[in-house]
């Protein structure tokens, strides 16, 4: 497309947006129609898909699996991806991200997907989901997202999982078995004790239909935290493998360092945080900054000793910005930054000083910041 054509298209879509907002007072027609559509399809949302909860299957004392049937128009997923699940709890929409723990092959065959969820101690949503949907019910799910996928090619893999970080690997391994993959895959699965490995028997059975699969169940009670020694003992050729890591952030950091030190190429180390990325800020720690909420007409100083995300700063000062997952994936809390530098705890990058959209829940002020809030 030529530049003038692009320009023309932009003018058109801008014009259409203006007309839509003038006539419906909403950014798009679907949002305006949403309350009417809900008369026919309760819970329908313009920006997501409905899914029925068919079963809540207990896995362990504090882990359960939700079996969902997404509506027919849902676009499917690739093994390793996650969805945002939103459910209404006492009138309030709660949004959480979960990796899909079943395989695309299973979805094609049955139309079902599974989410395996650990109940957060003192959590507001994960224990509630289990009870509220025990008898079935409807939730909303997003399109599948995420880049933590089965790598192309046939290079051997090392999968390192911690706790409920096993979920994307279960999806990938089931899918690989269904496709009769011959790839060599070693799974090192860390759990806090010998009773806490999820899908323990299932993985052992999977070895029958997936000859390349080898397993090391690691018991942190006995073997301790992940170490270089573990990798040398249980997967001696790990440097030549593509490494995939999913689990608590401390474990990811450790595993990455071990692999990098041993000489793995950094583009052969893939990882996914399970939970919010850690709030560690290189430099920028000394001195506090002023965060201004322009629409609210408020300005507050941040505490340099305890860096807070801008979402926390906003909420601590009585603002109620729209938010979702609080871990940087759902983009509900996107906000226009007028000026200032923010540090993104998820990407580990500093922003530009000029205007731009930022995610409040993973951004920490790194200079004085003015927000359109």
């Amino acid at each position, binding site marked *: 497309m030529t530049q003038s054509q692009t320009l023309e298209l932009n003018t058109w879509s801008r014009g259409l947006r203006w007309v839509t907002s003038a006539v419906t007072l*909403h950014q798009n027609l679907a*949002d305006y129609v949403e309350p009417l559509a809900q008369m026919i399809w309760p819970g329908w949302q313009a920006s997501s898909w409905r899914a029925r909860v068919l079963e809540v299957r207990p896995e362990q004392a504090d882990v359960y699996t939700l079996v969902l049937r997404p509506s027919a128009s849902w676009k499917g997923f690739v093994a390793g991806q996650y969805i945002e699940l939103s459910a209404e709890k006492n009138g309030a929409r709660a949004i959480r991200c979960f990796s899909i723990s079943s395989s695309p092959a299973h979805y094609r065959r049955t139309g079902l997907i599974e989410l395996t969820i650990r109940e957060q101690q003192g959590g507001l949503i994960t224990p509630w989901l289990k009870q509220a949907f025990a008898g079935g019910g409807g939730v909303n799910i997003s399109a599948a997202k995420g880049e933590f996928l089965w790598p192309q090619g046939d290079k051997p893999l090392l999968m390192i999982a911690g706790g409920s970080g096993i979920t994307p690997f279960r999806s990938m391994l089931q899918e690989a078995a269904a496709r009769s993959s011959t790839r060599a895959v070693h799974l090192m699965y860390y759990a806090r004790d010998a009773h806490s490995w999820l899908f323990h028997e299932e993985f052992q059975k999977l070895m029958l239909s997936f000859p390349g699969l080898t397993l090391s169940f690691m018991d942190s009670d006995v073997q301790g935290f992940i170490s270089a020694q573990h990798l040398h003992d249980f997967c001696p050729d790990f440097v030549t493998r593509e490494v995939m890591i999913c689990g608590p952030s401390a474990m990811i950091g450790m595993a990455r360092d071990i692999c990098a030190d041993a000489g793995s190429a950094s583009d052969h180390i893939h990882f996914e945080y399970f939970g919010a990325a850690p709030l560690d800020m290189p430099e920028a720690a000394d001195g506090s900054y002023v965060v201004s909420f322009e629409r609210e007409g408020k300005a507050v100083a941040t505490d340099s000793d305890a860096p807070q995300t801008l979402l926390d700063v906003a909420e601590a000062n009585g603002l109620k910005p729209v938010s979702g997952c609080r871990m940087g994936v759902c983009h509900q809390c996107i906000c226009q930054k007028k000026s200032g530098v923010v540090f993104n705890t998820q990407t580990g990058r500093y922003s530009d000083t000029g205007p731009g959209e930022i995610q409040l829940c993973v951004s920490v002020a790194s200079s004085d910041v003015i927000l359109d809030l």
Partner: protein
Amino acid sequence: MTKTAIPSAETLNAFERELNDVRDDFMSRIGQADADYIRKVIRTQRLLELSGRLVMVLGFVHPLWWVAGVIMLGLAKILDNMEIGHNVMHGQYDWMNDPNISSRRFEWENAGDGNSWKRYHNHEHHTYTNIIGKDRDYGYGMLRLSDDLPWRPKNLWQFISYINLSLLFQWGVAYHEAAAERIFVGKNKRRKDSSLPISRRQLRNDFLNKAGKTIFRDYIFWPLVCFPVFWWVFFGNLAANIIRNLWTSTIIFCGHFTEEAQTFREEDCVNETRGQWYFRQILGSSNLEGPRWFHILTGHLSCQVEHHLFPDIPARHYPEMAKRVEEICHRHQIPYNTGSFAHQYFTVVKRVLKYSLPDSFHSRPRAAA
């Protein structure tokens, strides 16, 4: 004009505690029923709007269709502005975490830009209620409604100004903030310091953008869509806007300009405690009594007292809260201003007329009505 003396500190403290208890009690009840309720109101509003626009077109079959369509559209606009827009933009439903029912995103069917309204209404009017010189909603810079302001000749015909303001109320709402910043008119009087969190240029652009959208929607887009009956739709929309303007203006005037609603001076609110603030909100506001449908059409501004005490509690709770607030006020001998719609409105008209004349005219004590 009556001024109730500030009660003793003990009374105010007890008063504050009791009102806080009412707030906490109702806060803990907020939940599914509120979400279901506001969704139902929004649904009703959408249905009324779309069917009103449709029915109006049938005016060429029989004019009564047109009348019915106008009334439906007028009701839809009233619901949007009052029970939905006003309350959503106060953040009463932000806890739902629904981007379409959030104070940050919601835009109402009104010539006034929602963000501009939120600035002067939520902050200025609700914090400095009825403080002369601080709360620009007091008389809207047009009307003299108490002897706090000196009489000027233009006050003689302020009843006519009031009728004009009511007919064009949405434009008054739209221009309110810009007027204070002397945008478009009175450039030479522009204030040096501005408390605006945005630039004047931005304010001006937002005003023009929203005004343009409003005119486009009601007087260009919908008439053109129904082209063969362009003028039926054009005038139908005009009539629906007038219905909405008259209703909203009338309800809002009853909220703070009834005979017994009191005014305050800036020094009254220096170092104010929460109890004093509650006290001032109650003296400056007045309630209207009526059936449930009436409360809904006023956006529960019929419970203006409770709205000013608890602006971010979903408004459907106000009638229940009112019973407890009234009882607390009676116990502490704090005046609680309530009455029928007809009576309260009558006193508003009386007040507009009374202060259109110089004080010397009615300085002699007269029997209270």
